[in-house]
Each structure stands twice: as C-alpha cells, then as structure tokens.
C-alpha cells in the first residue's frame, strides 16, 4: 500500500502529490435506500482508473478516516471497470429522515473525497 494515506501534508519542496480532482470527472454521494450512503468516483480515463485501482488509492482505511466511521460500517468498495469507477457504500449515519437528519437524499456527503491525494 502507498504511504499516501498516512502522510497528510507533503513536506515543502517534496510536494509530488496529485489530487483526485486531476483524475476524476465525477465525485458524488447518494442514498442507496434509506440505510446506506453510496459514494462514486468516476475516473477520466481507463489509465487513471487502472492506476488508482492498482494502487488502491481508495481503500477501507482511507474511507474510515475521511468519514470518521469504523471499517465495519463500510459495506463494500467495488471497482467497476465498465464505467471506470469505484463505488464505496457505507452505513448511513442514521436512517434517512430520522431525528437529526441533515441530508435526506444523501447527495451532499461527497466533499471529504475531494481532498484525496496520492503520490505522483
């Protein structure tokens, strides 16, 4: 596994990091039923997809850290070749519409993914 997920900020002059934004054309979140939140990253090209997949840029430890959830709350991380995409499905913080709800459709929970970086 790459050391990307452990070092948060690159050292000055050592900044050979790339942003997920350079390789993804879609990053989104949405309910998958009232009890699951599903996150999609669709890559710009087959090469970007293969590179990120082979290096496991998206992995359970990273998702756990970004969403402050235990890995047991991750239902699955599935790499989907036909769409050059990776799908991450996690337990919803509460069932959709329950007291304390902030996002009924789950459509605005993608922002933590925008900050993903990996070694260039």
């Amino acid at each position, binding site marked *: 596994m790459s050391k990307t997920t452990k070092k948060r900020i690159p050292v000055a002059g050592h900044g050979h990091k790339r942003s997920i934004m350079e390789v993804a054309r*879609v990053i989104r979140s*949405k*309910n*998958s*039923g*009232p*009890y*699951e939140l*599903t996150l*999609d990253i*669709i890559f710009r090209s087959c090469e970007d997809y293969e590179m990120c997949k082979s290096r496991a840029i998206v992995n359970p430890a990273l998702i756990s850290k*970004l*969403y*402050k*959830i235990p890995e047991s*709350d991750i*239902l*699955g991380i*599935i790499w*989907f070749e*036909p*769409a*050059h*995409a990776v*799908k991450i*499905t996690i*337990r*919803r*913080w509460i*069932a*959709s*519409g*329950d*007291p*304390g*709800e*902030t*996002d*009924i*459709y789950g459509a*605005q*929970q993608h*922002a*933590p993914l925008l*900050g993903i970086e990996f070694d260039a």
Partner: protein
Amino acid sequence: MQNEGNDDEMSKEFRVLSPTAILGYGFPEASFRRGMERKPHLIGVDAGSTDPGPYYLGAGKSFTNRAFVKRDLTYMLTAGVEAGIPVVIGSAGGSGAKPHLDWCHEIIREIAKENSLSFKMAVIPADIDKKIVLEAMAKGRVKPLSFVPEATAKDVEESVHIVVQMGCEPIMKALDMGAQVVLAGRCYDPACFAAVPIRQGFDTGLAMHMGKILECAAIAASPGSGADCVLGTLTENSFILEPLSDKRVFTPMSTAAHTLYEKSDPYHLPGPGGAIDLTDASFTELPGGRVEVKGSRYEKTKGYFLKLEGVRRIGYRTISIAGTRDPIMISKIDTILPQVEAQVRGMMKNPSPNDKLMFHVYGKNGVMGAMEPLGNAVSHELCIIIEALCTTQDAADTLCSVTRSTLLHYGYEGRIATAGNLAFPFSPSDVQMGATYTFSLYHLMEVADPCMFPINIEQYTNGEVRK
C-alpha cells in the same frame, strides 16, 4: 387493440418508450412525439422512490405535483390508447400505498373523462395486511437489508402504511386479464418496463437491465436529464438505448455509469425474485447517439423475496429559521446552544424525555453533522434552524417558540450586541411541519406467491367507467 397473446407473431424487436424519470417530472412534447413515431410496443413510467424520506409514505401524500402528474399522464394515456399499446404506471403517487394509488387513480379518471378514452385498466394495490407480515416474521421469513435493524412486532403494529414492492408477475397477470393500462402501487421500478416484454418471451436479464435504465429515462444519457424521453429497443440478444432529443446522446460510459447510481453494487442489482447480474455486460456505441448492451443476465434467488417498506409516526415537528452575523456569538456558538437548551428545559413544567430539541447550524456543520471534517471552520455568518420534535404539535410549537425567544435574547458571555441575537428572514418565524415519520420496515419478506396482490379491473368506455 393491443396484440396480446400473439406469441407466435412475436416480433424480433420490442420497443419501450420511457417519457420521464418520475411521473410528474415532465418531458418535452417534441421528444414524446418523436418516441411515438418510433411505434413503441409499450409506454412505461415509474412514479416512485423512497428517496424523499419517510414523510410521504406516512402522510399518504405525493412528492410530485398533481398538475404535472396529470399533464404527463394525459400525453401517455391518450397516445397509448390511440396506438393500442399497454401503458404501465408503477409506484403510483410516489410511495405506492392506498392513498397514493387513489390519488393517481382519480387523476386517470379525470383524464379518461376529459378525453373520452376507452380502455381496460387494472389497478393493483401494494398494501399488505399487518397480520401477514407478523405471521411471516414469526416464521422467520422477514429479514432486514444491510444496516437495517431487525424488525419487531411493535414496528409492524405501529406502522402507518406498509407496502410491498411488487415485481413483474402481477403486471403480467393484469395483462393476462386483458388490461391495457396498469396502475400499480409500490412496484420494483424496472418491472414497469420489463413485465410486458418478458411476458412476450424476451430475455429476462436484458429486459430487467433495460428497465433499470429506462426507469430513469434520460438520466443515463449525456447530458443527463430526468425530464426527457428515451426509447429502449429489446432484441433477442441485446438492447439498444436511443435518445429522443438532439440535445443528448447515450455513450457506453454514460450508460455503464448509470448502473452505479443509487446502488450499492453495480455488478449485482437485486430485486423481487432475483438479481440482475452485469458481470459480463458489454456496452457498445452505435451511430445516432445510441448504445447497445449485451450480456446482462438474470439470476433467480432461492425463494422469492419481496421488499417491505413501512413507516411509523414519531411525533410532530416545528422549526424556526434564523441567522446570526455577530462574530462574538459565532465564536461561542458551541457553548451558547447547549446553554440555551438547558435554560429552556429548566423553564418547562413537565419536560418529556421524548421531546427533542435540535439545532442545525449552517456555516459550521449543517450538511455533514458529526461527519464534517472541517469541524472548527466557521463562516462569517451562520444559519441556525431550531427544530423541536415532540409527541404533540402543541408541545413542538411550545418548545420551538420558547427556544427561539430564549436564543434571541440570551445574554451569552462577552455579548455586546444586546438588542437581539438572531436575524429572522420571515414573519411568522416559526413553522409547523406537522407529523413526522421514521422508516419502521425496510426488509425482505419471503413469499409463496409473487402474485399475492389483488387486481381490480375497470372498463372505461368513452371516458365513463364500469367496474
């Protein structure tokens, strides 16, 4: 009339017109006409979703607009009846329980009358008797979906409405009974598009996968739209998606990517009685902005499972919306709000532990709550929504009102703006949100008969109905 029962004459193609992603979202008339010119064998539409949350199933209300549902249905029914092809409407009224079905049924009656239409219609309610669910639970035939808690008898008994998401079989049976128009309660979305061709002998895997895409109309095209028509053409070993507007095209990527949408596993899409398996699906570009899909399979499950959806009422809600632009208050907001709650609760005579007071603080963590990664970042202004959720509407009104007035004049430490802490955009400042619901059931139930739903047939003749 429709060409029902002509299996010997089964044409090699079955064309399905999907006008819109959700009945009531609308579509351009030109796209619809272009679709009808392609002589479809079926017009299908899905009207429902659990996405808007538990309220709509609980309150018996549609999340779509009546005038626009009528507008969409008028095009579909008049064109479908004139062409002599089936029109299938699933998940009537959004949530597909009796009040939703009745609502949509009334709209169809109006359309039939206003346009003097003649057709036979099947109405299929999706509500289930609580006794049947309780019996199935007792026999261990009800199981929760991922992350859903086990259901108790109390969850079932307290449910306001329980619907069962039907598969293709009841729609096929309705066609066997001679129906041209099928109005179904809660229904597996692809079934509205797949039931008719499967009944005519087309491949289930291809029909279901095509239905899975057509139920979202042009959302799978590029640029995507939930309010534009598309045509799906099923053949013996593939299906072809075709845009009906020059504004958009299907691409292999847009089509494949749609399989991700709102689903937890893009390779396996479970539904009533089985799952669509896309492991070997291929997506090929054709001229004219079309895409051909091959290799989609259908795998039946051992045992036939239907999804139950139920909600129960948890109380009544009142909210108040306000803003603050005071930097001192903003810097202390995390301590001020709990202090205000403590002061309010101290003043209440008989505070109920079930009465919940919540603050949504936009500009801080209003969208992501505890998952917000930028916990300490705050804006120069905040929106605070006070939410009171209580066992009665009166109690919610009181809790919201007293919290609002207390927060407005709360003398927090270091305050220099002593005239009022909140900026209200509206008068009245407090809004009754009414009854509030929670999902009580989101479970699979094993059934012996996929056609467990009653089917009521009505004959319309020149707009007049005879049962």
